[in-house]
């Protein structure tokens, strides 16, 4: 089911629009700034010369997922539902 939904969203360009909406919402609520600060801490710890993108991904993913506000999740879910309702027979 997930794959079929993803296909529909991608095809109609809705996936890209949702990505943009999410980016805007996460910036507005301060999530982006929190993550940026956390990244800086990780880089300080590991040292600028040794840290890789993978290190950062591993370190910040759990925190990032946990800190997404419920309101943002709700809104996106609502958008996706509305879109699917409009575009499935």
């Amino acid at each position, binding site marked *: 089911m997930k794959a079929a939904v993803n296909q529909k969203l991608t095809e109609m360009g809705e996936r890209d629009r949702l990505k943009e909406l999410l980016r805007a919402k996460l910036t507005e609520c301060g999530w982006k700034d929190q993550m940026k600060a956390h990244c800086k801490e990780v880089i300080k710890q590991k040292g600028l010369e040794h840290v890789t*993108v993978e290190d950062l991904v591993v370190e910040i993913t759990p925190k990032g997922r946990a800190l997404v506000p419920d309101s943002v999740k709700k809104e996106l879910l609502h958008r996706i539902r509305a879109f699917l309702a409009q575009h499935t027979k």
Partner: protein
Amino acid sequence: LLTVKPDAVTTMSPAGCPHVNGFKVDNWKQNLRVIYQCFVWSGSAETRKRKAKSCICHMCGAHLNRLHSCLYCVYFACFAKKHIHEHAKSKRHNLAIDLLYGGIYCFMCQDYIYDKEMEQIAKEEQRKAWKMQGIGEKYSTWEPTKRELELLRHNPKRRRITSNCTIGLRGLINLGNTCFMNCIVQALTHTPLLRDFFLSDRHKCEMQSNSCLVCEMSQLFQEFYSGHRSPHIPFRLLHLVWTHARHLAGYEQQDAHEFLIAALDVLHRHCKDDNGKKANNPNHCNCIIDQIFTGGLQSDVTCQVCHGVSTTIDPFWDISLDLPGSSTPFWPLSPGGDGSALNGESHTTGATTLTDCLRRFTRPEHLGSSAKIKCSGCHSYQESTKQLTMKKLPIVACFHLKRFEHSAKLRRKITTYVSFPLELDMTPFMASRYSLFAVVNHQGTLESGHYTTFIRQHKDQWFKCDDAIITKASIKDVLDSEGYLLFYHKQFLEYE
């Protein structure tokens, strides 16, 4: 020339890593572009359809898990489960591209690499695709151009902005009852976006004469941020105002609010030639004044008989609010009622709050039997209700508390205290948070009075500007003041 100390950045070499050389052969640029267009940022419906169908992991079929595409052959695999790593190893194809963000991964370096030529291609393709889809421009941090680096090298003098430096603060000499102009100049020179616009020299003048008010504003900003501490004499500004807004000429005291609107109007008119394209619709100008100050006020008139709604949207630069004690009926909303406590406004004395005034402004109003409106649904004159709401809130919201009453029989100043907050949540009226950055006050009576301005410099330092005299002020001073014009700035900005 002044600058702010930048964060430490690593210098990256133009070539990301030595392993890309194997890829940069023949028609590699075009091939890379095709990959971006088809599988990363799909702009057209055709490419999107292809992407939806084909972008799944060739090993496990997943469409998530940080899907990557091999740069040497047509192979998609997920990163999280290391399927793309297996492909890289077995085929000795050492480069892959992240389909979500377009980053290039080198399996030899075991990290994402930043190749200047490849990044350039990525940027261009993203911009193209987003334009096709109607998504705006992506915000990217400022990087100096070669010319700018040259300028910085030739002008080595630097001014450090510390928390106790007074840059941006300057007094203004009173040229004879001109405090009504001085107080507005203080508010405008401390409007963050306007300041940024002028200090980055964004105004390109196309006026033939030298009576351009925008040029004068630009000059004014240079004076304010020059570091000079002596008061500035704004005689040229005053002369230009007299030239372009005749109704404000003369040596008697004028209304600061009238001056604000006149100044914005003249600036807007002189700015209209500033855009890349000439504004063909006078109401849809894209000048800096419109971008910052213009909002949209929606007026809905509902017929009481057929309930048909007639809607109009008018642009506005400020919101004029009636006060209790004026001759217009003011509904006193109970202090501490839900909504008023929202903005942390004080209710210790049962004072009216700014939110109360805004709620009153947007409440439905019955127009009465003597003011019937012709209803297009009923084809006759009917009683109706009218309601105002903020359709579009500007970046800077200016609230004008109507303290000067000029009705037929009386002329007086309403001194009722209205409590206003440091941070304003416009959620009940629109979804946005605003911060206070300037307050204009009037002391005295209608006939003779004096204007002063509180302005916010840096994040939380407040100063009182009384013509040429600038003194430190506390937040309490600001919030306890009577308030005539209140300037709020949107906290989060989205780039359109």
